[in-house]
């Protein structure tokens, strides 16, 4: 899919990011010619694909992990949120130990899985018995 160039991370609600200083308003020329056949369809398509467009322009903004870049030297400003544990979690979950994702954390995952399975399967058996009993005619 061809896409228009992106100059800034700020973008309009509906459309492709462009150089439009008023990003909330649509610009007819921000779309490649191919899309201009059906404006309604284009807008509809754009709402849902706005996050998928590949970065084509050389001026594309860097991917920002949502920590404030201005305060990157100040490590105490966001103590209330704790530190970013995502990189270590990424390393942890990418260990190739063959364990499926729902058990990857070990014991806590196993306990929760077993509890869920026991309640569901046990509940189903109870349910089948209850339905069988409910289907027996009651003789007065």
């Amino acid at each position, binding site marked *: 899919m061809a896409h228009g160039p992106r100059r800034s*991370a*700020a*973008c309009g*609600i509906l459309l492709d990011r462009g150089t439009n200083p008023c990003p909330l308003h649509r610009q007819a020329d921000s779309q490649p010619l191919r899309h201009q056949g059906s404006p309604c369809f284009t807008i509809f398509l754009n709402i*849902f*694909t706005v*996050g*998928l467009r*590949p*970065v084509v322009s050389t001026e594309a*903004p860097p*991917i*920002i*992990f*949502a*920590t*404030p*870049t201005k305060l990157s030297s100040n490590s105490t400003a*966001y103590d209330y*949120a*704790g530190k*970013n*544990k*995502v990189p270590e*979690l*990424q390393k*942890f*979950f*990418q260990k190739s130990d063959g364990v*499926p*994702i*729902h058990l*990857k954390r070990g014991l806590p995952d196993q306990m*929760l*899985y077993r*509890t*869920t*399975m026991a*309640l*569901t*399967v046990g*509940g*189903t058996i*109870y*349910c089948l018995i*209850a*339905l069988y009993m*409910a289907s027996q005619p009651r003789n007065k």
Partner: protein
Amino acid sequence: MTHQTHSYHMVNPSPWPLTGALSAFLMTSGLIMWFHFNSMILLTLSFLTNTLTMYQWWRDIIRESTFQGHHTPTVQKGLRYGMVLFILSEVLFFTGFFWAFYHSSLAPTPELGGSWPPTGIHPLNPLELPLLNTSVLLASGVSITWAHHSLMEGDRKHVLQALLITIMLGFYFTLLQVSEYYEAPFTISDGIYGSTFFVTTGFHGLHVIIGSTFLIICFMRQMMFHFTSGHHFGFEAAAWYWHFVDVVWLFLYVSIYWWGS
């Protein structure tokens, strides 16, 4: 070491579809047991197993995406299609209830007094609490858009602030609706007026609660640095769902509260 040569996600075998299906079975049977035999054990069990399934299934999706990196653009495209189709199915769900409302209100029967609202029904004033509810949801639509733009600009503090405002507005709406339900001079058993009013607004309220829960999850994930400025589909899905909830309310307000009064 084998590598896949395509960009799709081959998921690990998972027990959650099975537990989810069984919990749905327990839920339907539980309703039967509750309605006919006055027993709530199965129903309670079904809510518990359903919640456990949802928690673990979505926890696994977060592990697969944020921690393992399986959500390539191809995968994300599929998720976008999925969310769009789901919201479309919800639109059709609400269409049914609006159809029922218009069916009864456009041609009111003699039993209703030949009028809408039916004789004896005192509808709520659309310019009082319902109008406040409308402004609350519209404001929450603005705040969630602010949150999204902040996210795309990497402005962490404002994402959290705007999301919090959106969530609080959602709670405020729910609280106002609960008080409206208590204060209403008519009930669900007041003929077709009561049925259409409470079933439609009731399902809408349930969707507000679901949407608020989704937003709270997004808030927690943002706190934990899961979202990046370029990849945050979970947030976008929550935002789409929230806008959908807002639009349904606008239809509700115009049709049932305003035209129907």
